[in-house]
């Protein structure tokens, strides 16, 4: 069905919806990320629950109009609690033929498609690989298509401004945003305030973007192209103060909080790498919190400096993605040997090698568990949602400080760039993670251990009487002197293993959502949380005895993990890798856990989680 533009004779119908998923897709120069994030802020501020999935190419500016240059931003907003950015869009906004071609496969039949008709020119169609114009050849007949001459209408709205045609064209994303605001009854005010703030010093651009936004809104209102507009009521979220955060933002905030809670300076050493760089950007803006950031010459220098800072009594932190972890491995092992607190952030992306830098994957688990020489145990934690990145960043530091050990914090591209409303915690509810330095020279030995945690003392330079030497060579138990004694090496290897195993004494039990026993347990970790949780809720609605458990601690596992696994007939472990957690679970608990493994650079859909669970559930 194709509609044409005509003046509106009567008021449009209003329809109440529980949830809407929109995908903005365009050229990477079209400002789709900005458009999506503006809609997200507006929906979140209105009180909807929101979840987002930015999907952008690694190329900063691939050739205009080309297929690799397509950038997308999907967001879901709802009047009830949601856990994912939606399996598929209800509405696709395609700014050019390439965006249409790469995204139309995800739009279900009957879905709404809004296209910038002006961009469907011969050259653009050719670049997108279309032999005929899909707007004319009937290939889109299963969708509700709205052809809007966005470029032309937008240019008309900006007439009279002293701007080049190219500058005018750059504002057309605001026209599309304005149209969507009208369609979903959203206020333009937050975006207008944002534009004023952003372009305050260049009034002409502020004016242009506002005109574009308002023109889009007015277009929806005055033409009869759209017969309906939609209302999504605010969600009933738990009481509290909320803000929108991405995982990377929450991670950075969590580390600043950890620095306060430990009463120590935060030092962040990092080398730019997608998708972890935003953590460096955020932390380098927190100088008023005494945060020291260091953009190192390479990944090794970044972790070396973090180890040096920890040695000096600060919170030495480093962050990277999978390829950077490979480079840091030797230095991580130095931290294992010298038993200094250190947190290593791995924002995972699709590998191996350079892989797909902006795409999501969970395939570094075994790398961080085992990718080092010798027996080299390290605690590993993994947040499940963007908001949870905050508390897991603090948890990583709690473990590192209490046990004097490097800790790996495994995030991923989906968590890092995805956003959701986050209930801002009360500072009084955050844990005290402070530990003291060794100060007493009487009977001081650098490798003495706390009898409970097996942590060695943190004796920082500047402390009189505690002068001592540490390093990567094997240490004699207690004295810390260099030792090649065979029995000592065995004892120290076991001690390092036991120390990490004892972390399990201070972590919470694995929680189960759903019946405490039954037909199926779906066990997940990391960013697959939303899809698994949503699917489990749907299956509960169908009367299935299925439960969801999500691991935040991957080494060591919570104490009750074996008991939880044993309470269900089947265990399904969906992962965006070829079965890494499953390997660990099978080895540790000797159970026949089933896997569901897809590595497409994308998050799982709720529907595929449901489908996979149904495979293992009794027919109803």
């Amino acid at each position, binding site marked *: 069905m194709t509609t044409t533009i005509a003046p509106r004779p009567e008021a449009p119908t209003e329809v109440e919806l529980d949830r809407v998923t929109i995908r903005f897709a365009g050229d990477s120069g079209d400002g789709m990320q900005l458009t999506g994030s503006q809609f997200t*802020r507006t929906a979140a*501020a209105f009180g909807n629950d929101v979840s987002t999935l930015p999907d952008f190419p690694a190329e900063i500016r691939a050739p205009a109009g080309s297929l690799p240059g397509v950038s997308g931003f999907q967001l879901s907003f709802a009047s009830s609690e949601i856990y994912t950015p939606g399996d598929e869009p209800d509405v696709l906004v395609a700014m050019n033929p390439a965006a249409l071609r790469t995204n139309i496969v995800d739009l279900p039949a009957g879905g709404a498609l809004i296209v910038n008709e002006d961009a469907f020119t011969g050259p653009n169609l050719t670049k997108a690989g279309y032999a005929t114009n899909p707007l004319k050849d009937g290939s889109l007949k299963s969708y509700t298509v709205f052809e809007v001459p966005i470029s032309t209408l937008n240019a008309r709205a900006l007439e009279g401004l002293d701007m080049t045609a190219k500058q005018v064209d750059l504002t057309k994303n605001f026209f599309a945003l304005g149209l969507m605001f009208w369609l979903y009854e959203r206020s333009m005010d937050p975006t207008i305030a944002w534009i004023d703030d952003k372009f305050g010093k260049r009034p002409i651009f502020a004016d242009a973007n506002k005109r574009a936004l308002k023109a889009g809104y007015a277009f929806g209102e005055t033409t009869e192209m759209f017969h309906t507009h939609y209302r999504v009521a605010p969600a009933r*979220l*738990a*009481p*509290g103060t*909320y*803000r*929108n*955060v991405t995982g990377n933002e929450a991670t950075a*905030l969590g580390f*600043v909080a950890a620095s306060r809670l430990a*009463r*120590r*300076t935060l*030092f962040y*050493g990092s080398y730019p790498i997608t998708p972890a760089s935003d953590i460096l950007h955020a932390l380098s803006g927190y*100088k*008023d*919190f*005494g945060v*020291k950031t*260091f953009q*190192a010459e*390479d990944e*090794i*220098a*970044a972790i*070396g*400096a973090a*180890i*040096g800072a920890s*040695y*000096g*009594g*600060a919170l*030495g932190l480093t962050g990277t993605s999978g390829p950077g972890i490979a480079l840091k491995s030797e*230095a991580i092992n*130095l931290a294992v040997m*010298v038993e200094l607190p250190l947190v290593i952030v791995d924002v995972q992306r699709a590998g191996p090698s350079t892989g797909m830098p902006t795409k999501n994957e969970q395939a570094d688990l075994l790398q961080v568990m085992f990718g080092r020489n010798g027996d080299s145990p390290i605690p590993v934690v993994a947040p499940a949602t963007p908001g949870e990145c905050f508390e897991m960043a603090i948890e990583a530091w709690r473990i590192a400080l209490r046990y004097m050990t490097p800790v790996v914090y495994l995030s991923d591209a989906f968590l890092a760039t995805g956003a959701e409303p986050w209930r*801002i*915690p009360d*500072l009084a509810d955050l844990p005290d993670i402070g530990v003291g*330095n060794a*100060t007493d020279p009487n009977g001081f030995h650098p490798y003495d251990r706390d009898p409970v945690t097996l942590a060695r003392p943190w004796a*920082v*330079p*500047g402390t*009189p*009487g*505690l*002068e*001592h*030497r*540490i*390093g*990567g*060579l094997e240490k004699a138990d207690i004295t810390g*002197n*260099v030792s090649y004694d065979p029995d000592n090496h065995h004892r120290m290897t076991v001690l390092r293993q036991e120390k990490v195993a004892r972390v399990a004494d201070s972590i919470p039990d694995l929680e189960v959502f759903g019946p405490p026993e039954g037909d199926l347990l779906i066990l997940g970790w990391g960013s697959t949380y939303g899809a698994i949780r949503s699917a489990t809720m749907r299956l509960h609605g169908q009367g299935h005895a299925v439960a969801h458990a999500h691991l935040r601690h991957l080494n060591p596992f919570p104490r009750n993990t074996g008991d939880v696994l044993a309470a269900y007939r089947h265990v399904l472990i969906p992962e965006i890798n070829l079965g890494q957690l499953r390997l660990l679970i099978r080895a540790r608990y000797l159970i026949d856990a089933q896997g569901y493994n897809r590595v497409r650079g994308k998050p799982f859909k709720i529907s595929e989680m449901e489908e996979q669970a149904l495979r293992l559930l009794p027919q109803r």
Partner: protein
Amino acid sequence: MTMTDGLSAENAAVIQLTRKDFVSDQEVRWCPGCGDYSILAQTQKTMPDFGYPKENIVFISGIGCSGRLPYYMNTYGFHSIHGRAPTLATGLKAARPDLMVWVITGDGDALSIGGNHVLHSMRRNVDLKLVMFNNRIYGLTKGQASPTSEMGKRTKSSPEGTIDHPVIPLSIALAAEATFVARSVDTHTEHLQGTLERAGRHRGSAFIEVLQNCNIFNDGAYREFTDREVRDDRMLVLQHGQPMIFGKDRDRGIRLRGLQPEVVQLGNGVTEADLLVHDEAAPDPYLAFMLSRMWWPDFPVPVGVFRDVARPTHDELMTAQIDKAIAQRGEGDLAALLRSGDAWTVE
């Protein structure tokens, strides 16, 4: 956190430490006759002069024979991994500007596996004193060519002679914008002590090359010009503000011809006024770079301080930015930070 402020050099007299205070209880385990013994002894002798309490001094090393030195110093010490000592020093100094940080390294550790970190720690002017033991060979791994081994050198890994052109350590340090660059010799104990002392008093990155003899795998590497009988004739001791004169009889000097240095005999119309005058504080390192390339037998080998200039250090600049942020915005308020952006309240 314990944050003892570093005491100034003027406190040396008050603190009253001696060489013995810097000797650790560990047995020294270099090969008998190794040049490292002398470097260790001169280092221990120099330390009391700085007036730093020994708990405020840290020695960080990489891998190689030189890497063992921290074990023998009764200060804080960190024997890290191959080539990475400057990175640990950078982080330590950033976190703890109050500490005096020494990096102990070798020609392989600093210029092969760790070359990148030397470059960047120097250009940042991290306040560390990097002492590079240059024996022109890999000793700990039993005799392979190093990045300073001479072209054509036959070693275990280059039986037909190495085909890799060597690097000149001080040229690299100068190109990396080090603010203090010097050279000394393991056996020239007084000169070495004086050089270490100068380096220790410098604020910023100091690069000290010590020509060091490996009597097992590269014995006599520098004998031709460092031996007592010939050194005065074959080495040039640099002194700031002084003309470049050398020779047992102080009868030869270095003159500039075009852009090239040349050795001249004093007399027959050539006077001291014709000679180059050493200027370690020159804003541009042209002279120092030229000196770094002079080598026996074409030239006497220069030792001493090639360059000593002032530039703000990495930790000073880092601290200044933090102080400025706090002065402008006040001490960070965590509750306000968490609420920043568009926050809304659900009743």
